[in-house]
């Protein structure tokens, strides 16, 4: 109580003191506190704090805690997790977006910088462009380059990049802070060039070199520059035209200070290694003189770009002199007098800097290492190549190096394209003679077969270049020999198919069918082969009804022409079954599959790849009926034979692994399933490529397993990854794309992001209804899951009606049978309507099991 009284008194005196003029306070306090020195001291302390309060508690807690972010549209970021990254602290913000210090937990535990690109860019395109360069970026390994690890998108759709965290400051600031001499600056700059050179050798161009992307930190007491943001400019680049430089609001996003003249050109962005050399030249200029060569301050954009293209940079020594007073500070930061600075710059350093800054690319240093070589010559007092006095000698030398430079820059790509072109030229000459044409066709078929993953083990990307090129040329190149042309089209279509690029395959197969029908006749075995392939390409795209029709026609003709047990006839049977399955007609599909398997076992033998294919195709039917143990047995058997007969990396072997993983998953053996699927994904990525449909299936399944294990963040990341690629590769309305979408919705729901999940699922269901029809099992499955969402939200009535709808419209039998045990439906168990639903579902399942 005493305490309380004292507090009240303290409060009263303090309030009164506040009202006093500061100069009157000491006297006032003396009077008010009397001899209570402690009280007076406390009040004085409070009065002192009053001045330091700032905005303490002024903003409501919610806002103060960080919702009002720069830009404002990503409000709840800190403490959030983006995939495997925990955002810790905002460490920078700029025109491009924000940079966060983040913590990665798997597969390695480390601190990273996460760059969140501002909203408004096409996220998918940005990430796709990054992906296209990921491999090249992964190859970079250099002490002066900060590695870029990853790219992705936030749930709100903003792209982000993850890179090595560098705790440094921009190179220009570092040099000034440490008052480094020109000599020291040049030595530091040489390391920067070496980093850029390394990247160029890996065919990566930075495109956005500037001091804020070159951070210096100290390692063992020595300054080490690290270049950040490699690969980001390309992924996020927009044409640097007037539009590109402005945001929608009309605010300018950046100045072209470090931009090369060719980047300022009006005709698209045409950059190469020399673009980086130019930017390095600007950085060098600034390191030496203290300012950038061209002043764009307060200029209209058009004028900026014009100057950039046309105005020659003044010599560094001239600029230093022209700076007047400002050069005093610059000189001091470089440990010399203004006159001394100009003197040091004049001559060699002028020449080197201006050569890097030539407007015309051909006159610049071709590579960063040439720039380095000249700097090193200067540091050693050797004559530099950039001096005009040595022009003729220099030009000869330059041209020689220049050719090499281009080759290095363009790298593998140029080699491949020119190789492809040479092949085409050769073709044109040779097709005049038929027998030689056959040979070249065989040769080319062989060449294409290299990119068939089952033969090539993963060269798909490079071979793809040849293939795309050749498929464009084939119409004109072989038009005089339609038979050969059709043969080539067939072969190329097959390769596309094995790469999982079904629409490209379809286009070539369609043309092959047309030509062969015309030239060979509609019943010729080759025509039928092309028809069969076309059916497979259609099925691959999820166009099952069309595939079914075509497969039936092909099967009928093959039976007639080749006989009912010919291997090709059996292939048509098998493919027809796949189309039926795709249409959700499980019973018919299973019947046909069993028939085919039986004939194949008898005719081709139990270990023939086709026989194994039939076994593998049969397993999903067992699944649908919940006969998981049987399916597991069948898949194990198939896997074992495939490993032995086809090898462990064969696509079919991998499919078996994936299927077996699904069986284990259904049996609730998650750990085993995860291990197997993980392995399958790894091998698939390596062998078939990261975008192959089989790789995607394995990824999808792995996500499902992670989901079932409650590892939602991982599952979400993988689902998103799969969905993005499927959307791009298979199209937004493909059966499998929609499956990924549904799965993603399920994860989001588990993450308590109900509204988002429901929206996504409803969207999916709408497309499924339209594209697959209301009776397709996948449509029914989405309906069922929507029902589950309703259960979660406590809307029993709606839930029951959705579940009923799902059961009535082709829900797969295994789900029908599982309704009773579905933990998500537990809260319906007390509802009087639930037992009727369960009974109804069981009837449906029993009916579905009987083949029609």
């Amino acid at each position, binding site marked *: 109580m005493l305490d309380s009284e004292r507090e009240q008194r303290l409060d009263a005196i303090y309030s009164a003191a506040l009202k006093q003029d500061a100069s009157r306070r000491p006297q006032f306090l003396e009077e008010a506190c009397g001899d209570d020195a402690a009280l007076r001291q406390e009040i004085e302390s409070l009065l002192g704090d009053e001045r330091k309060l700032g905005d*303490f508690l002024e903003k409501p807690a919610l806002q103060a805690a960080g919702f009002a972010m720069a830009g404002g549209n990503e409000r709840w970021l800190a403490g959030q997790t983006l995939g495997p990254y925990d955002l810790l602290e905002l460490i920078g913000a700029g025109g491009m977006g924000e940079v966060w210090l983040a913590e990665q937990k798997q597969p390695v535990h480390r601190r990273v910088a996460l760059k969140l690109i501002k909203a408004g860019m096409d996220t998918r395109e940005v990430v796709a462009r990054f992906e296209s360069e990921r491999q090249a970026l992964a190859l970079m390994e250099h002490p002066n380059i900060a590695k870029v690890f990853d790219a992705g998108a936030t749930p709100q759709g903003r792209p982000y990049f993850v890179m090595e965290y560098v705790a440094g400051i921009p190179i220009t600031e570092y040099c000034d802070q440490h008052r480094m001499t020109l000599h020291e600056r040049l030595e530091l700059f040489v390391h920067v060039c070496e980093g850029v050179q390394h990247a160029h050798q890996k065919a990566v161009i930075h495109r956005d070199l500037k001091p804020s992307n070159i951070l210096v930190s100290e390692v063992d007491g020595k300054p080490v520059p690290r270049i950040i943001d490699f690969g980001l400019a390309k992924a996020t680049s927009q044409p640097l035209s007037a539009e590109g430089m402005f945001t929608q609001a009309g605010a300018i996003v950046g100045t072209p200070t470090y931009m090369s003249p060719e980047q300022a050109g009006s005709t698209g962005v045409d950059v190469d290694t020399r673009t980086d050399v130019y930017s390095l030249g600007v950085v060098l200029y600034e390191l030496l003189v203290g300012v950038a060569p061209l002043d764009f301050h307060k200029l209209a954009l058009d004028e900026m770009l014009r100057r950039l293209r046309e105005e020659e940079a003044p010599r560094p020594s001239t600029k230093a002199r022209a700076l007047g007073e400002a050069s005093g500070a610059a000189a001091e930061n470089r440990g010399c007098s203004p006159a001394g600075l100009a003197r040091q710059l004049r001559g060699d350093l002028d020449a080197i800097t201006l050569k890097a800054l030539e407007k015309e690319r051909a006159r610049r240093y071709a590579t960063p290492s040439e720039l380095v070589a000249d700097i090193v010559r200067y540091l050693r007092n050797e004559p530099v190549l950039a001096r005009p006095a040595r022009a003729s000698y220099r030009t000869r030398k330059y041209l020689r190096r220049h050719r090499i430079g281009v080759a290095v820059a363009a790298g593998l790509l140029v080699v491949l394209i020119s190789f492809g072109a040479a092949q085409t030229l050769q073709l044109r000459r040779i097709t005049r003679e038929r027998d030689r044409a056959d040979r070249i066709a065989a040769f080319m078929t062989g060449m294409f077969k290299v990119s068939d993953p089952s033969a090539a083990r993963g060269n798909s990307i490079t071979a793809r270049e040849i293939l795309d090129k050749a498929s464009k040329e084939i119409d004109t190149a072989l038009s005089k020999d339609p038979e050969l042309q059709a043969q080539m089209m067939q072969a190329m279509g097959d390769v596309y198919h094995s790469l999982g690029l079904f629409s490209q395959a379809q286009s070539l197969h369609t043309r092959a069918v047309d030509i062969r029908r015309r030239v060979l006749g509609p019943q010729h075995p080759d025509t039928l082969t092309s028809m069969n392939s076309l059916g497979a390409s259609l099925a691959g795209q999820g166009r099952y009804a069309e595939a079914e029709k075509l497969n039936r026609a092909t099967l009928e003709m093959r039976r007639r022409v080749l006989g009912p047990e010919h291997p090709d006839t059996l292939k048509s049977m098998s493919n027809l079954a796949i189309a039926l399955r795709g249409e959700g007609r499980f019973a018919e599909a299973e019947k046909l599959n069993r028939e085919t398997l039986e004939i194949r076992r008898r005719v081709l033998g139990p270990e023939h790849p086709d026989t194994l294919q039939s076994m593998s195709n049969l397993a999903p039917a067992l699944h649908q009926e919940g006969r998981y143990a049987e399916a597991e047995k069948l898949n194990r058997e198939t896997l074992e034979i495939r490993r032995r007969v086809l090898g462990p990396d064969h696509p079919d072997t991998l499919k078996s692994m994936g299927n077996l993983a699904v069986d284990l998953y259904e049996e609730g053996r998650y750990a085993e399933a995860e291990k197997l699927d993980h392995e399958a994904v790894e091998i698939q990525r390596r062998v078939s490529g990261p975008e192959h449909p089989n790789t995607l299936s394995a990824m999808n399944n792995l996500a499902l397993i992670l989901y079932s294990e409650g590892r939602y963040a991982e599952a979400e990341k993988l689902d998103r990854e799969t969905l993005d690629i499927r959307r791009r590769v298979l199209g937004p309305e493909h059966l499998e794309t929609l499956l990924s979408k549904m799965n993603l919705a399920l994860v989001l729901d588990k993450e308590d992001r109900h509204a988002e999940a429901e929206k996504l699922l409803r969207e999916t269901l709408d497309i499924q209804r339209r594209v697959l029809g209301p009776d397709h099992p996948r449509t029914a499955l989405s309906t069922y899951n929507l029902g589950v969402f309703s259960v979660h939200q406590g809307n029993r009535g709606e839930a029951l009606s959705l579940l009923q709808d799902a059961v009535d419209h082709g829900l797969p039998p295994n789900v029908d049978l599982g309704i009773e045990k579905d933990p998500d439906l537990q809260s319906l168990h007390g509802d009087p309507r639930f037992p009727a639903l369960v009974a109804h579902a069981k009837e449906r399942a029993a009916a579905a099991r009987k083949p029609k």
Partner: protein
Amino acid sequence: MRGESHGEITELLLAWSSGEVSALDKLIPLVYAELHRLAHRYMRDQPVTHTLQTSALINEAYLRLIDCSRVRWQDRAHFLAVAARAMRRILVDYARSRKSLRRGGDYQRISLEAVATLHQARSTNLVELDEALGTLAITFPRKAQVIELRFFGGLSVQETAAVLDVSEDTVLRDWKLARVRLYHAMKRGHEHAG
């Protein structure tokens, strides 16, 4: 479930307004849950470009939870007081949970209260503030409440005055004194800790 709480919460609010103290204990968790859910939803769904306002959140909770036809306008003030208390708990709980998460809990899951550790290092430590506020409330309960209403509940001076049934001048004076007291107490905490 939610349909049922609608009437229940109104009932509790009326009971508390008419002096039944125990109603408050039942009320707070219900309001807590609704605010929590709303904030969660805001955070997830809306690509809003403006800042999430505490008052907007509380208003929406009010409209959702309270049957407006049955309450007087004074009851709204009581609701705001409850909501501010609930917000305080949400935010402080979150700040606390972030601490323990750092030691390796279940951080896979993104949870609402990503009420940003962003400025936490630089701005107010909510856990400490909560403790200091508890101490302040012993001697100056009204001052502590002003802080709770304004800082945690996001109420304006006018609303705060209405809730506490005092003049706006009083609110401002309390506010000023309480801020400096809390600042002082928290600073001292740091000095001792350091």
